[in-house]
């Protein structure tokens, strides 16, 4: 526990210094209102030591045209910003933010959420729910904790460092993962019964819980178990859901379970800015905060490889060697390439040849070769035969010439 905070120290100093000055003014200049000045300084100084008042005051000062630039540099990262229209008129243009960032910053929300054992993030679609979950999960993973993510909308690369399951509504995979988590919980519970009190943190993150929890057998029991008793075992639960109705999560008659969560609602205000409503678990009071300035996790999704993309360098070297290799004598689809590493490799000529634009390496098929040979024997011109049969021009001409007997 902190002995005394800097704000409290400053508050006491303001009261003693300016309050004493005001008191001395009342004694030294009786009847004069000069004492009001140091008294006002005392009140103002004390007021600025209150974080909420300080934020409001700095935001107001930043809105003044002459002081905007000076105070802008002093403003803490969590200070409230002006509406975009006014900010554009009254303050210098900010440094270009990342292309996928939300407009406001407030580090307090993340710190508060990190402190709680379990979290419930509520938000409608595009409200910033998954973005917040993603930030929490990836931070935990980066710190070395085991993070299990059940997300039916998961995509490759979306949850770096986490064990993500559920890609493409794969509820069976989620069920298997939850089964593994349940086994881990039971193991830890058994260890605790033997006297173990410290466990490596395990974070279970369930996004779109309104689909996952009712849809996966046993998920509700696991959620309830972890919410009630998981913190002692180092198992923490973070749930993303679109509303707070107990029916949505299948918790009818068990609404008390939700009291174990630190609840935060992600919304957009009238100006379109993302905001967060933090529910006090004790009083139920809702505290409005600016949403954290977080990057869009969608940018991390790894797209599938393009089949028409040029081959990587290693494949290009292989194909270059393949091109220098004579086609199989039988005119088949396979060829053997001799490489230094790993040695002779049999490749499908037809498959790899298509990757090289403008080059046709497929050998002329034997029936086609015979057709050209017959055309030559029958006296048909090569131009007419080629228009009719197609294929590799050089090899076709060679076959036609053999048939012609030239």
């Amino acid at each position, binding site marked *: *526990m*902190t*002995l*005394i*905070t800097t704000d*409290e120290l400053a*508050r006491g100093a303001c*009261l*003693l210094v*300016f*309050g*004493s000055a*005001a*008191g*001395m003014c*009342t*004694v030294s200049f*009786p*009847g004069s209102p000069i*004492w009001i000045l140091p*008294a006002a300084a*005392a*009140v103002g100084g*004390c*007021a600025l030591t*209150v974080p*909420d*008042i300080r934020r*409001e005051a700095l935001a107001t000062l930043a809105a003044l045209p002459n002081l905007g630039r000076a105070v802008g540099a002093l403003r803490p990262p969590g200070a409230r910003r002006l509406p975009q229209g006014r900010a554009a008129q009254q303050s210098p243009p900010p440094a270009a933010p990342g292309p996928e960032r939300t407009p406001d910053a407030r580090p307090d929300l993340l710190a508060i959420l990190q402190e709680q054992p379990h979290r419930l993030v509520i938000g409608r679609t595009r409200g910033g729910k998954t973005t917040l979950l993603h930030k929490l999960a990836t931070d935990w993973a980066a710190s070395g904790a085991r993070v299990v993510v059940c997300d039916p909308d998961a995509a490759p690369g979306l949850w770096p460092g986490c064990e993500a399951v559920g890609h493409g509504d794969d509820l069976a995979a989620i069920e298997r993962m939850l089964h593994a988590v349940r086994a881990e919980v039971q193991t830890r519970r058994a260890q605790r019964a033997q006297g173990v009190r410290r466990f490596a943190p395990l974070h279970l993150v369930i996004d779109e819980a309104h689909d996952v929890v009712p849809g996966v057998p046993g998920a509700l029991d696991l959620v309830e178990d972890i919410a009630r008793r998981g913190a002692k075992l180092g198992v923490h639960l973070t749930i993303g859901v679109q509303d707070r109705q107990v029916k949505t999560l299948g918790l009818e008659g068990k609404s008390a379970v939700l009291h174990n969560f630190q609840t935060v609602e992600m919304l957009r205000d009238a100006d379109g800015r993302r905001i967060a409503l933090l529910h*006090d*678990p*004790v*009083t139920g009071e809702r505290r409005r905060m600016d949403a954290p300035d977080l990057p869009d996790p969608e940018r991390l999704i790894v797209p599938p490889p393009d089949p028409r993309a040029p081959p990587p360098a290693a494949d290009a070297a292989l194909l270059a060697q393949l091109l220098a290799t004579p086609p199989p004598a039988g005119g088949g689809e396979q060829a053997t390439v001799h490489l230094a590493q790993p040695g002779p490799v049999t490749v499908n000529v037809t498959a790899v040849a298509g990757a090289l634009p403008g080059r046709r390496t497929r050998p002329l098929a034997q029936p086609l070769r015979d057709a050209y040979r017959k055309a030559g024997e029958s006296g048909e011109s090569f131009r007419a035969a080629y228009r009719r049969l197609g294929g590799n021009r050089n090899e076709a001409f060679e076959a036609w010439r053999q048939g012609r007997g030239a």
Partner: protein
Amino acid sequence: MNAYDPAFQQASCFTRLLDVRSYVLAARAACARLDPAPALFMVVVFGLITLALTPIWIVFDLASTWEFTTGLRTAAAPVIYEMSGRAESVLDLPVGALLTGIIFTGFTLLPSLFELAFPTVRHPLLNLVLLASIVFDYVTDWGKAAALAATWTANRALEVVYAAAFCLFVSVGVQAILVCCITVIIFGALALLRGGARSVRAVVIE
């Protein structure tokens, strides 16, 4: 704030030390089930402390604030009487001036009242009013505190330091201690009465 309040859990030692409401709640909880004898002891001991502190509070806090506001009223008296002469039928300004003094004097009680009444409301405006009342109380108490501190030392700098510390004590500390003491006295007296009633019932049953 109370011990189960997350804000209290995160508060510094200094904040907990000055949290009058937690003292009041603790005193109430401690006195709720007291037996008659300890209740009587608590009432007597805290009554003596209250008796000792009440004159200090009245002289250095309440009276000094009253005198300060009286000085303000006196300074403004010519203007007030001139205005009252002009608008006698509309406004009774001398009475208004008196009420203003009473209201200003009421500022001396505001810090404790705010801490007791709005401990969980963390609104910037309420914080501002609370701070303003603390500063106003401190300023109004300075005159008598400085006059007393001047008798303790001849060193001017030390005199200011003594005056500042004593003024802080009489404007904030005495009030807080009095609130706690009066709480103990009230709930101790209630416990005493309840215990007496129980004893009477026991006698009747036997």
